[in-house]
Each structure stands twice: as structure tokens, then as C-alpha cells.
């Protein structure tokens, strides 16, 4: 079961990497949220009820429902736009696959008994692909999505390492992600008004 979920997660990653239209991100983000929920539910069965509720909230409500809706709200009217990126289509797919292979190799190198290699692979792939998306794409929404993908990776990583953080920290992390997404969203809206574009290449007035 877990293997199946992780593989699905990686497949969503590959899809995210090759997406060219903003609209296509929303279901994938929602799917990732659901997958993460299943994973954490399976993994952390013996933890306390409070923590379970928290994780439920984090994955299902926040990641699977709130974020896609929020994205949809802020990208209203431009969801069908095509991305401008230097590495396109199949090449980005190939690159994403390569990154996944790299993370497999890295995970394979880690001979740690407490480390779940499967999770670790998924987590590193997620982080790598998130960074790849951010570097490769020029649209600000994609940057936001990249950030979320990276955060998903970090979440996976924390599952991979077994819950080490105290409650306080976990809730803080949740709050942090929530507020940063919120702030980014708000600023994104403002940017749209001011610059009349969401292309990051136009966002380069501050330089030397």
C-alpha cells in the first residue's frame, strides 16, 4: 500500500514537472495533498489523537483543499496561459526523471537503519523537482507551486525520519507554511495589479 502511494506521489511529481498550463496544477496539488494524508495516516497510526487531527488538518484540509482553491482564486483569468520556460516539454520530463534517478542514487547511498529509503527518495525527488520548477519557470504562480512542492518534500522527509518534533513546532510549521502561502498569495495579487504580468523576468528592477 505504502509503496503504491509513494509511486503515485512520484508520478504526480513527474506530471508537475512537465505541466505547461497553470490550470493543470490544481488537481495535482490536491492529489499530492491526499496522497500525503494517506501516507501519514498509514505511518503514524500509533500517535496521539491530537497529532492525528493536526496532520489531518495539515494534509487534507490545507494541502488538498485549501491550496488548490486558493491558487485558483488568485490566478483567475490566467489559468490557461502557457508557461515560458527554457527547458520545455519532453526535455523537462527527461530532466525530472533524471532528478528522480539521482535521488534514488542518493537514497541508496544512505545506509541508515532508521531511515526509510522509500520516503527519503520521494522526499528528495520532491525537493529537487520543486527547485527545478522554480528555476525553470518564469511565472510567479509556478514559483509558489514550486515552494509548495518543496514543502511537501520536507513533510515527507519528516515522515521518513519519524516524528521528532514536539507539538509546538509542528503546529508552528503548519502556521508558517500557511502564512507564507497567504502572504505570497496576497503579494502575488498586488504584483499582478502593479506589473500587469506575472512573468518573473519583468520582476528584475532591483539589481546591480
Amino acid at each position, binding site marked *: 500500500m505504502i509503496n503504491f502511494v509513494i509511486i503515485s506521489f512520484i508520478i504526480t511529481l513527474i506530471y508537475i514537472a512537465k505541466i505547461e498550463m497553470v490550470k493543470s496544477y490544481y488537481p495535482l496539488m490536491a492529489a499530492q495533498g491526499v496522497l500525503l494524508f494517506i501516507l501519514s495516516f498509514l505511518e503514524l497510526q500509533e500517535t496521539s489523537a491530537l497529532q492525528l487531527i493536526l496532520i489531518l488538518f495539515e494534509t487534507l484540509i490545507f494541502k488538498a483543499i485549501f491550496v488548490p482553491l486558493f491558487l485558483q482564486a488568485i490566478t483567475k483569468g490566467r489559468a490557461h496561459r502557457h508557461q515560458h520556460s527554457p527547458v520545455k516539454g519532453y526535455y523537462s520530463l527527461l530532466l525530472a526523471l533524471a532528478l528522480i534517478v539521482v535521488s534514488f542514487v542518493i537514497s541508496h547511498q544512505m545506509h541508515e537503519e*532508521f531511515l526509510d529509503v522509500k520516503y527519503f527518495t520521494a522526499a528528495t525527488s520532491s525537493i529537487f523537482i520543486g*527547485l527545478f520548477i522554480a528555476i525553470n519557470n518564469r511565472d510567479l504562480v509556478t514559483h509558489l507551486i514550486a515552494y509548495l512542492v518543496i514543502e511537501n518534500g520536507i513533510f515527507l522527509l519528516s515522515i521518513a525520519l*519519524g516524528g521528532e518534533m514536539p507539538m509546538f*513546532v509542528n503546529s*508552528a*510549521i503548519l502556521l508558517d507554511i500557511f502564512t507564507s502561502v497567504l502572504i*505570497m498569495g496576497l503579494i502575488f495579487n498586488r504584483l499582478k495589479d*502593479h*506589473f500587469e504580468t506575472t512573468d518573473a523576468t519583468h520582476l528584475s*528592477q532591483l539589481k546591480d
Partner: protein
Amino acid sequence: MITVVMAVITYFVRHRVLTHVMVLTYLAGLGFIAFNLYEHLGEPLGEYFYCDRLGFIFLIILIIVSVLSGIHYITFVEYRNVPREAMALHNAGTIFFTGAITGVLFAQHFGVLWTAMEATTLGASILIYHNRNQHSLEATWKYVFIASIGIAIAFAGILFLGLAAHKIGHVDFTFAAIKSEASRLNPVWLKATFLLVLTGFSVKMSLVPLFTVDIDAKDASPSLVGATLSSVLMNAGFIAMIRFYDAFSLTSILPWMNNVLLITGMLSLVLSASYLLKVRNIKRLFAYSSMEHASLVTIAFSCGGIGYLAAILHLIMHSFAKASLFLQVSQMHRIYNSKWDESIGSYLRINPLGGLVLLLGFLSIIAMPPSGMLITELMMFQALVAKSYWWLAAVILVLVLVIIYGLAVRLLGILFIKKPGAQINMKGATPWESVLQLVLIVMVFYIGLFRPEFIVNNIQKALEVLPL
């Protein structure tokens, strides 16, 4: 106690009453707390916090700088006709930011430290956003985005540490616990943790590799925010870095950490030198100068021994000098309505007191006597010589000369040379503020000349734990 502070913050954040009094009251309260804390030095504060000397010293600096920029903000609002909403948001942001930094300073748990650090990003983003124009939007976006990714990277690092700790069955995540167990942990994970944390926090410390957005932030925000960012926030970043360094300092990776810090510092120094040669925007100029000092601190720290003392003292003095300079820039901006050096000229003639601040501030940041940074740079070189890094010392010397050249050309040009394009509006000059800034700089001089035993002793005690 800190949780109480947090509660106060949230109260103010919700409360949108538009008054500066609250900020100042809050800071006064913080000062009061600090006053009380002095008796509790070395005692834990609640579960996740711990009152140590290092944090305490920087708390004092935090209060001084924030009070000054708070006062400055009052004039700023009057002069600029800042909308009430923006003002309220700024004040709330200040309180949130200050509280978050206090959290960073006293955190005793890696996770809490991380949380507080993330909170500073959010607080800072509110402050940077203040002007609400294209530049500030761009800067805020970049800052939040890059800082968040940096923070995520740092969190991954902390997770690695957790992995390592988990392996030996240890689950307590406080500094003290990790430090005592560190030698049993797998050095590879520790290295990964340190590297990722350094990378993640570099945005706060204004170091390579994430320095870029920090510079933009200081440029696009009001100068008083720049003052806070390049003093208080930078200190907090360094404190966080030092916590990790301290925790791992008893293990075999100490030389490795030193080397990494040295590389980081050198890269940052080269970059800042190259920028200082060409930058013409005075705010960015000071921002890069902060980067230079951050790299000097890093280099000093990486050398160990007397370098630790040099690093901390340098941070303290840099906070004072840079805060006063940034605040002065705000005044200049009002007088000339520009931040570009080609339209700011003969400042010493136009505003003698402000010019004096700029001149003395310039002397302090290029480490000319009576600036105390001379002493710390001396210590830094001493540390380098003690480690026989001769070539590095020579390179650093050349780069520092380049930096002085860059700063001197711009700043002395502003002070003395008449620029034809300058449009002067003397209403912007506020002599009493300049006097306050002068006091800060005089403090730098005082430290340089007289070796205040109180500060030095406290730093030395705080640093006793580090390996020599």
C-alpha cells in the same frame, strides 16, 4: 515568560489602534524584561528557552536599535504622510518581528529556533512591504520566496540532525542535550545539517549564497527597516548559526565547519568587494557593506580562538554603526529626495550634523580609529596569523582595501562634492535625530578606545563553551 511576550504580540497584531506608543511601550516592556533577565542569566526560561549571555547582549542591542528606529518612524510618518493602515501594519509588524527575534536569541531547542526564524521572515516581509510600490513589492516577493525556501532547506538540515539523534535513541532536541551527545552522532549527518542550516540562514546573515534578496530588501524598504535588517536580523542569523556551531563544536567536524565558514566568508567578501566598486545606490551601498562585515565576522569566527571574541564584538559594533548610518540615509533621502549618489552632494555643507554622522559612520565601518572595528579586525588578523593563513590574510587585506576605496569614493563624494543635479529640501533635516545617531557611533568609538570590561567579560563568559 517569552510566551507571555508572544501573547502581547498577538494582542497588538489584532489590535489595529494606530499609535506608536504601543511599539515603544512594548519595547520598554522588553527592556524591563531584559533588566529582570539580567539576574536570571544562565537560567532556563520555560521549556524551550534559555537565558544565556550571548542572547542577552544581543537583546540589549535589539532594544536599542528598535527604540531608535521606532522613534525615527514617528518622524518618518509625519514627513511622508504614511497611510494609517500601512502605519498600523508596520507597527504591528515591528512588534511581531522583535518578538520573533527575541525568540531566536533565547531559543534553546532547534525546532523552536527554526520556528522563530521563520517568524522573523514573515515579520520582516511586513516591514519590507511598507512602501507599497513596485520596488517594495518585488523585494518582498523575492524575500519571502527565497527566505522561505532557505528556511525549508534549513528545516531539512534539522531533520537530518533529528535522524542522527534518533539513531542513538536520543530524542531530546535541545542544544545542551545535542551538544553532550554530539560526539556519538554520525558526523556525515552533522555536516549535512550544518551545511543546510548555514545555507538556509545565509539570507538572514547576508552571506553567500542567499545574500541577493537581503540586499534587495534593504534597498526597497524604508531605510529604518534597513537599519533593523542589517543589525538586529543579521545578529539573529549569526546567533542561530553559532548555536549549531556550538552544539557540534565538540565533535570531529569542527575543522570542517571552520573551513566551510571560511569559504563562505571569503566568497561573500569577494562578492561584496566587487559590488561596492560599482554600486551607486547609497542604500545598496550600505547593504553590501553589511555583507562585507558579515563576511569578516564569519572569517573571524572560522579562525577560532580570539576570532570568536572578535566576531561577536564586531557584530555588536557593526549593529550600532550600521543602524545609525541607515537612519541617517533616511534623513538624506528626505533632504535630497533621492538615494542615488549622483544627486546627493556637499552634504557636510548642507547638513553639518548629519554630515558628521555620515563621516564618522564611514570611519567606523572602514575600521579607522577611533572605531572599535579596528580592534576587532586586528583580532581577526591575529586569529588568521595564529592559524598561519598568510595568503588569506593578504587577499582579505586587498579586498578590504578595495572595499574602503569603493565606500570612500561614494561617501566622501556625497559629503564634499557639489552635485549639479541635487535638489535640496531642508525641511527633511532633523538635527535631534542626528544627535541620537551620533550617540550610537560614539558607542562604537567608546568600545574601540576603552575596552568596556562589562561587555568583554560577558562575551568571554558566553564564549567559554566554545573550543579554543
